[in-house]
Structure formats: C-alpha cells, structure tokens
C-alpha cells in the first residue's frame, strides 16, 4: 500500500471509531465501573457472587406452594427464565387497576395476597429479597425500560422533586452529590452516579442482600435526615425517577458493591 492510501485508511478508521464513540456517547457510569477489578470479577462470576445464594433461595421459593390457594409462583407463571425475563427492567409499574405504582417487592406482595391467598412477606425480609433477586436475575443484561404509562407521570415528577429537594441537617439533595459532584471523591470514595442497575444488591458492608430502599435510607441517614417510614410512597416515586434516569443501562442484578 502506498503512503497516501495508508493515510487515507488511517483517517477512515479514525473517523469511523470517532463516530462510533459519539453514537455510543452515553456518559452515564454504572457503579460497577467505579469498583475494583476484584469486585467486578466477583459480581460477574455466578459462583463467587454472594447474591447468587439468594437467587438460589428465591428459586426454591418460586416453586414452593404457599397460602390457602395452595399455589406456587411457578403454578401460574411457569418457568421463570421465560415468564420473568424483562420484568424487572420495567418496574416500578402501575397495577392493572391500581391507583399507585408498585415496585417489584410490592408486585410480589400483591401476587401473594391476591392469588396465593398467603400472608405478606415482611418488608425487606430475606425471603422477599430472595424472590426479588430471583426475578431480577432473569433480566440480567437487559436494558432498563421504564414503561411509558401516563399514570406514572405524576409519581415520576414527585420522585424528580425528591431528587432535588434539600434535606437533613447537612441540607443536601441527592442531586448535589450524584449529579453535580459524581465522579469526585468523598472521603476517598468515588461518588457514584446512583444508577439503580444492580438491585437487589449484595453490599459487602451489609454482608447481606439489600434493597434499593435500604440504600436510599443509607443516603438519608448520611446527610442526617429522618429516613422515610417503611412503606412511604417516596421510595417508589424516587425509584421511578431513578429508573427513568438509568433508562437503557444494563440491569446487573444481583449486583455486588463495596
């Protein structure tokens, strides 16, 4: 090849890769990318990711009969790998004739009380988180796809307002850290962009699987606000906003975080 042709090829290659970088110019970062390599490997290896222990537990619960209806999840939904694929990426969502959005936990609860005629699982209990993790695992790698249901709009707006609302003795809002200062360091730790891509997540700090609600409470306590009471609508509203904000990012559940 002659020198001008080489230069031309190099120029074309550069232009193509530059264009590709622009098209994929999504600057959002999952917390996964801010972790060390060891933790990333831990999350990616299904036999090293402790979250998978809970997924395994959830799989058992999925096929266990419960309630006076004596039905298991599998009796209605069948094989979870088919029926639950893509479910976790579109929650929170509106129930068919509901008046408020439900997160995955709320949806599982509704199924238990309506169809299985069983008692509610305690909020954020191990069994509930395990079921949630099992369902979320079926959507791993899929892009987060919040539904375009117009009934969700007011709740999403409520979530967006909460995101920007200053709270607590430190008078901080979520946005101040996770929008304005994301990527900088707070006490040596990189401030993540707060995309809920890995929930329920196994945090090494917790030594157990935990929900997004628990993570939100951590933040609230961190800036010395009163955490919202269990079951408050604020959690689901903020989750709606966060999922919209992370639209198109890949779901990693069950994630591992430090």
């Amino acid at each position, binding site marked *: 090849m002659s020198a001008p042709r080489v230069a031309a090829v190099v120029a074309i290659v550069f232009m193509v890769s530059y264009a590709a970088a622009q098209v994929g110019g999504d600057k959002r970062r999952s917390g996964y990318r801010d972790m060390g390599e060891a933790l990333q490997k831990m999350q990616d*290896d*299904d*036999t*090293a990711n*402790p979250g*998978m*222990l*809970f997924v*395994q*537990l959830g799989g*058992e619960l999925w096929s266990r009969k419960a309630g006076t209806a004596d039905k298991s999840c599998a009796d209605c939904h069948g094989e979870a790998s088919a029926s639950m694929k893509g479910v976790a990426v579109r929650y929170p969502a509106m129930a068919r004739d509901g008046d408020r959005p439900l997160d995955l936990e709320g949806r599982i609860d509704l199924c238990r009380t309506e169809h299985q005629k069983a008692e509610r699982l305690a909020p954020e209990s191990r069994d509930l988180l395990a079921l949630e993790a099992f369902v979320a695992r079926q959507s791993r790698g899929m892009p987060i796809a919040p539904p375009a249901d117009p009934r969700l709009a007011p709740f999403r707006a409520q979530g967006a307002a909460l995101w920007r609302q200053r709270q607590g003795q430190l008078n901080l809002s979520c946005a101040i850290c996770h929008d304005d200062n994301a990527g900088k360091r707070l006490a040596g730790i990189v401030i993540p962009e707060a995309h809920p891509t890995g929930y329920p997540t196994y945090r*090494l700090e917790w*030594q*157990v699987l935990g929900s997004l609600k628990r993570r939100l409470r951590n933040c609230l306590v961190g800036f010395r606000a009163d955490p919202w009471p269990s079951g408050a609508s604020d959690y689901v509203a903020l989750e709606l906003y966060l999922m919209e904000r992370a639209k198109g990012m890949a779901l990693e559940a069950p994630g591992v975080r430090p």
Partner: protein
Amino acid sequence: MANVLVNAPKSAKRGAIVEIKALILHPMETGFRPGPNGTIIPRNIIERFTARWNGAEIFSMDMSPAISANPFVSFFAVATESGTVRLRWTGDQGFAVEEQVAITVE
C-alpha cells in the same frame, strides 16, 4: 436447607492442579454484637471447613468470628484419581452441611 455454590471443574488431566471454590450462606454472627434489645446476640459461626477427595482430606481450615458472612473459600488440589470431593462445613448451633462434586480425571 443450606445454600451452597460450588465451582469445580467437571474433568481434569491427571496430575493437573485444579481450583475448587465454595460459597455458603451463613450469617457468621460474631457473638460480640448487641441486638436491638441490648443483649448480646449469641455467637453463630462456622467453625471448621474440610474437603475430602475420595475420603482423603485434602484441605481444611478453622474459621473465626472475624470472617465475614457467607464465607467464600478457594483452594487448589492435584487431580490424581477420578472421584467425589466432599465439602463439609460444621459450626455453632449444630450447623453441619455437606456438599459433593464429582471430578473425572483422565
């Protein structure tokens, strides 16, 4: 019902070094933490982990309260003969769990 995840190769060449990785669901309660009512939560840890290849012990370890919940153990062994590797965790409050994997040596 105990919850265990074991990662071991299904087959190995004779004389090869294989890695066996095992993860178990366990709270590893230290016995030093006060509970919500102020009294100490009783210690509940795994005390010992052993691995036997066709009955012969190839690896064992004692665990302490400083080890995290859901302990992950990884160790290496030389593949000499086909057979089963039995992994056994024993600990406080009568905890005893056994899991086995088959490895074919060619």
